[in-house]
């Protein structure tokens, strides 16, 4: 046990150090070098107005999706479960699309604020989560459940496409850039909302960690050991909805970080105990999201962070699948 505790601590310290290095590197990325920003008096406008919010958004969203992934992998007892695969991100996307496109198009209605978009995304995520929980109660096979999640995601994406179809050109352009997945374009107000929701989701996940551990040994064993399985699932799903809804509302659908961060964490720390996996996955998710953000801007022309995350994530998932045969 001491060996394992040391490994967990070492992992967290390394991830934190990496986080700081990547954050510093990400802050410096862009057309204008850092020295010019400081010397040219653009600290407030560019550094605090654009770059710091982008770096913080990436860290918070990556951490949020990793927390959601580690909880979903436990409650569905499936190593490939994450908000993106299980259709929760797509549900959040539909919620955000309704808020940004439909209501903005209604004459006389003001474009909704960030809180409303986050709430709509949360509602969309909640609908998707409720559906997936309902399906999971009648489906025993993990693979069938995973496929059901993928199908659910397709349905929500189709609904989102229908909503897009009725949008005007300007709103549609905004929505397309959102749906590609990006950590840029947020102000500090969105960062605070994201941080607040992540905080609530993290606390819920953390106090539920004992339940997440026992549920890995099966529903029957958990119930016979006195664990309130329904309550554990409910707390987890609320936590997942909060963090996924917030991350998706402000960054668009970012996949794969929710799958790979918990796997990397478990592999490097040697434990599946959620008391350690949840905070360590959050750090790992933040590191991965920052890495994806840096990769999305290093080539000169900014790329969608969702795509660079997929480029990092898919090889890792293939490795996991091949290793598990």
């Amino acid at each position, binding site marked *: *046990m001491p060996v*394992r505790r040391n490994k967990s601590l070492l992992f967290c310290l390394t991830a934190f150090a990496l986080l700081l290095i990547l954050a510093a590197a990400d802050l410096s990325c862009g057309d204008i070098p850092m020295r010019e920003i400081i010397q040219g008096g653009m600290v407030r406008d560019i550094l605090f107005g654009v770059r710091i919010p982008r770096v913080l958004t990436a860290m918070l969203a990556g951490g949020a999706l990793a927390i959601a992934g580690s909880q979903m992998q436990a409650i569905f*007892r499936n190593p490939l479960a994450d908000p993106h695969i299980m259709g929760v991100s797509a549900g959040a996307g539909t919620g955000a699309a309704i808020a940004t496109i439909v209501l903005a198009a209604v004459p006389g209605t003001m474009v909704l604020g960030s809180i409303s978009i986050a709430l709509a995304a949360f509602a969309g995520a909640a609908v998707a989560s409720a559906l997936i929980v309902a399906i999971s109660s009648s489906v025993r096979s993990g693979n069938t459940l995973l496929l059901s999640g993928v199908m659910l995601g397709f349905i929500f994406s189709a609904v989102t496409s229908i909503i897009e179809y009725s949008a005007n050109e300007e709103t549609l352009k905004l929505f397309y850039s959102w749906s590609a997945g990006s950590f840029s374009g947020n102000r500090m107000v969105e960062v605070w909302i994201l941080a607040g929701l992540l905080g609530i989701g993290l606390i819920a996940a953390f*106090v539920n*960690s*004992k339940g997440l*551990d*026992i549920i*890995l*040994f*099966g529903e*029957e*064993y*958990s119930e*016979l*050991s*006195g*664990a309130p399985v329904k309550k554990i699932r409910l707390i987890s799903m609320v936590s997942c909805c909060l963090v996924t809804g917030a991350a998706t509302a402000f960054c668009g659908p970012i996949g794969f970080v929710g799958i790979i961060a918990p796997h990397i964490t*478990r592999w490097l720390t*040697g*434990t*599946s*105990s959620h*008391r350690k996996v949840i905070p360590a996955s959050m750090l790992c998710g933040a590191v991965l999201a920052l890495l994806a953000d840096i990769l999305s801007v290093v080539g000169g022309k900014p790329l969608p962070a969702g795509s660079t995350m997929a480029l990092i994530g898919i090889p890792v998932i293939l490795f996991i699948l091949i290793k598990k045969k």
Partner: protein
Amino acid sequence: MLRINDIAIGYSNKAIVDGISFEVVPGECILVCGANGSGKTTLMKTVAGVMKPMRGTVSGDGTMVLVPTGIPKVKGFTLREFVRTGCYSETDIWGRASKALESSIDEAIALLGIGHLEDRDISEVSDGEFQKACIASALTRRASVLLLDEPTAFLDVDSRTMVLQALRKVAAEKGIAVLFSSHDIHESASVCTRIIGISSTGRFVDSSLSGKEDVLSQCFASLRKG
């Protein structure tokens, strides 16, 4: 200690077996046998209180603990951490146990002879050793009656013998009544103190009334039919 009084077991108002009555005293090690689908698991779940009897009563002193079959060996937990999950409601919010509870975990692990494996990841222990850990996990709940559904299923010969001997030891040394279902009639019969079962005609049979040989022959018949 445990009294089963004229119960009927079954699902959705359809009785599988009727008129089951027996008593269990501390230290007994009882084999529950019968063909697939005869109602062994339903009987175990009804006795454990997981299912309600359709008729009759189940009463007893102390705690009845059912150990389910097919618990997965999840990588990333030590054997001791797994045993600790058995006392879920007694650990704190982070899953930490009090000193008294840690002592009862020590005792359960020692009784089953798996102390040398307590820091080993459960994905690395053998199936038989893991089954022993499942029994240890149930013992931490201060069981007075331990019910195990197919504890030797999918185990190799050595592991099967190891688990059956562990069950006998738990009953003899802790004074706990052990009821376990199994298809391995011969091997299980050699370690148990009594056999109950469901015959091929769907009748409850008990070796304390008709003798072990008689129950075994009825169980063999039921197995041939199944």
